[in-house]
């Protein structure tokens, strides 16, 4: 019933027609409404005062100076990476598994329009209402409309980065609905009004005391007795008791989705806490919000994809709970049949910039991402600056790769420069996204999207010098000689490399260059 008048999404307005399967830039041009640009964050808290580059640099500086926090995050990430390495060693060949997982996801993307239409057809047969959303406001409006049509008041949510991306919680709260996150990590940051720190481990940056603090001060005494201690079990039981009431009282359960299964018209969800099962199964209405890149061609593909997700993400051979949702409860005209499960199930397929990425052949493979977070776990940038510094929904290497094309290269291209290009991410990615080389490609796009006049003329000068050996030799001699003479300027704004010199020394000045040595006898 919603399909007709709510489907205002990209496919209807700008997407490919239902009969064609070829993809081209023109059929995948961006939607008429630009994607929402969520507010910037400051240590995860919403603020609107700083431009993204400035915010990133300032927060990176603060985070990098916080040694104990860096050690805390680094240790956590190192533990996950070690566990992952042990689990990967149990594979016959993790490299072949990566090849196949990448190929499955790639097949889905190369045929994405046909796959999504196949999903829609099969899901509709299963009794699911499929909706299409071009951008954030479209998702939020469609969810609110479903809520209103069913006189729903309250929502229980399981973990969903797609809803984080479009700021669904704020939209629902603004519209007067109650929203509670049921994933423990998400619940904690919801209480603290923060963005997820890591898109798989949203509250990994917090210590027990800080979590107890949130429970003590952000949960009303009518809702629950105080938490007994900062013991992990006590903290978990506290949240569990609150959740159990919410599952029963919520009118609507909203979840994300890990895989959209085209041949079965089903949604697969992977989780460790069992909260998604209750979110999706107990309330009368279940709404899934899922990015279109989560497409997987066949049900049997899950055998590998779910294994890769669990292994790459957390070093688990398989995540605790893997559930495939085939639709609402099934009953005949007389109301006979299944007695549990939601009465309605809706799936909202979200674009929000993904088709822009799809339209760029050089970066398209980034849509293979299964959001396991492995690239964050091995990233030395992430472990030194933390997740909130990125100022984007998706942190770490994958965030630096997808945020510029999805949200604006001029605004977010700096994230591609904030990398030493070490390649630990690419080496780890279970679906073989060419992550660190994409950062180079985005840098090339950035020089066009946001030209830096001074840098460009410096590069022109550099190229001219390096084409002429005599200029290069003279330049090197001058630089070495003058650096000594310019000592009084060291560390000031006139010092071109003060950023280096502040905390690092430079090598001493050699008596001669290698070339001089060669010419003065080294040749023999």
């Amino acid at each position, binding site marked *: 019933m919603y399909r007709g008048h709510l489907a205002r999404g990209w496919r209807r307005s700008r997407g490919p027609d239902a009969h064609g399967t070829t993809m081209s830039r023109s059929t995948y041009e961006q939607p008429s409404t630009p994607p929402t640009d969520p507010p910037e964050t400051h240590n995860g808290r919403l603020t609107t005062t700083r431009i993204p580059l400035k915010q990133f640099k300032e927060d990176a500086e603060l985070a*990098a100076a916080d040694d104990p926090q860096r050690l805390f995050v680094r240790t956590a990430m190192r533990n996950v990476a070690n566990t992952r390495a042990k689990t990967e060693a149990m594979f016959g060949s993790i490299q072949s598994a990566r090849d196949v997982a990448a190929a499955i996801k790639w097949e889905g993307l190369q045929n994405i329009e046909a796959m999504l239409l196949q999903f829609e057809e099969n899901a509709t047969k299963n009794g699911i209402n499929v909706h299409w959303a071009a951008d954030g406001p479209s998702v939020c409006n469609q969810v609110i409309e479903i809520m209103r049509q069913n006189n729903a008041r309250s929502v229980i949510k399981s973990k969903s980065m797609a809803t984080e991306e479009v700021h669904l919680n704020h939209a629902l709260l603004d519209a007067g609905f109650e929203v509670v996150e049921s994933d423990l990590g998400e619940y904690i940051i919801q209480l603290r009004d923060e963005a997820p720190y890591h898109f798989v481990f949203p509250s990994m940056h917090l210590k027990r005391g800080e979590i107890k603090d949130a429970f003590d001060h952000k949960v009303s005494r009518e809702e629950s007795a105080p938490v007994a201690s900062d013991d992990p079990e006590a903290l978990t039981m506290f949240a569990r008791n609150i959740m159990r009431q919410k599952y029963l009282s919520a009118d609507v359960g909203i979840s994300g989705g890990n895989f959209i299964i085209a041949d079965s018209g089903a949604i697969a969800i992977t989780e460790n806490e069992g909260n998604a099962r209750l979110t999706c199964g107990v309330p009368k209405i279940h709404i899934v919000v899922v990015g279109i890149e989560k497409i997987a061609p066949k049900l049997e593909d899950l055998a590998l994809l779910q294994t890769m997700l669990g292994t790459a993400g957390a070093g688990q051979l398989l995540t605790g709970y893997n559930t495939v949702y085939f639709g609402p409860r099934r009953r005949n005209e007389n109301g006979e049949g299944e007695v549990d499960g939601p009465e309605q199930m809706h799936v909202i397929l979200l674009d929000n910039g993904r088709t822009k990425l799809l339209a760029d052949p050089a970066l398209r493979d980034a849509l293979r991402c299964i959001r396991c977070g492995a690239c964050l776990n091995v990233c030395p*940038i992430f472990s030194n*600056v933390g997740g909130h510094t990125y100022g984007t929904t998706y942190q770490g290497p994958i965030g630096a790769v997808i945020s510029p094309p999805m949200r604006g290269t001029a605004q977010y291209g700096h994230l591609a420069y904030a990398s*030493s290009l070490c390649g*630990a991410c690419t080496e780890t990615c279970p679906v073989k996204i060419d992550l660190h080389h994409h950062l180079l490609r985005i840098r090339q796009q950035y020089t066009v999207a946001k030209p830096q006049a001074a840098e460009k003329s410096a590069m022109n000068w550099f190229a001219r010098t390096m084409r002429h050996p005599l200029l290069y030799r003279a330049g090197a001699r001058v630089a070495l000689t003058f650096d000594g003479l310019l000592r009084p300027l060291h560390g000031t704004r006139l010092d071109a490399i003060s*950023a280096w010199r502040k905390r*690092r020394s430079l*090598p001493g000045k050699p008596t001669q260059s290698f*070339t001089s040595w060669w*010419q003065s006898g080294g040749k023999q």
Partner: protein
Amino acid sequence: MKVHLFIPCFIDTLMPDVGIATVEVLRRAGCEIIYPTGQTCCGQPAFNSGYTEQTRSIGRHMLDLFKDAEAVVSPSGSCSAMVKVFYPQVFAGTPDEARANHLSEITWEFSDFLVNKLGVTDLGARFPHKVTIHDGCHGLRELGVRDQPRQLLEKVKDIELIEMDEARTCCGFGGTFAVKFPAISNAMGQVKCESAGRTKAEYVVSGDSSCLMHVQGYADKNGPAVKTIHLAQILASQ
């Protein structure tokens, strides 16, 4: 074997001893060295900053310079990777594509050349010190240089090699990254230096002088008291 030597600009200008040691080791391994003196830079700073045209104009100079080479060897994982891995991408679809692909094929990182091209691991070196290895990222992940330096060090007399926990973690140099994002770069340098410090090694050894410049630069101002040395310099010691 005739070897064309590719000496990166910062080694030429700032660390000539690394180049000199490279010449000595390659000669000891029986190579005849040719050094085209018109060398400048491979263009990596322009490439990493996103400037393709400027990279090509510098790269063409390299293509001209080494057009007659049989094998090109460089004592830098990073600059070798620029030529070997990135030149074919930079010149793809341009008239210089074939030349770039050819140069890529004949270019070798120093330790990889010794071990996998010449099949030599024992250079008759002696270095009576405790050392730890830093795997430069470009060598490690673009070129697969991981075991080669260890195989070479294993044959050095009186050396003691202690692996650090963070051997494969980036040192934080990253070229222009080090000055564009100094806070992050320093934090990474700190992680690397502290890990090296825990081994109590006298030297951090690597096949990449740019990483070593960063590690030494950080260690000099913040500790630990560790020295850095290029692999070629250890292999040249007797």
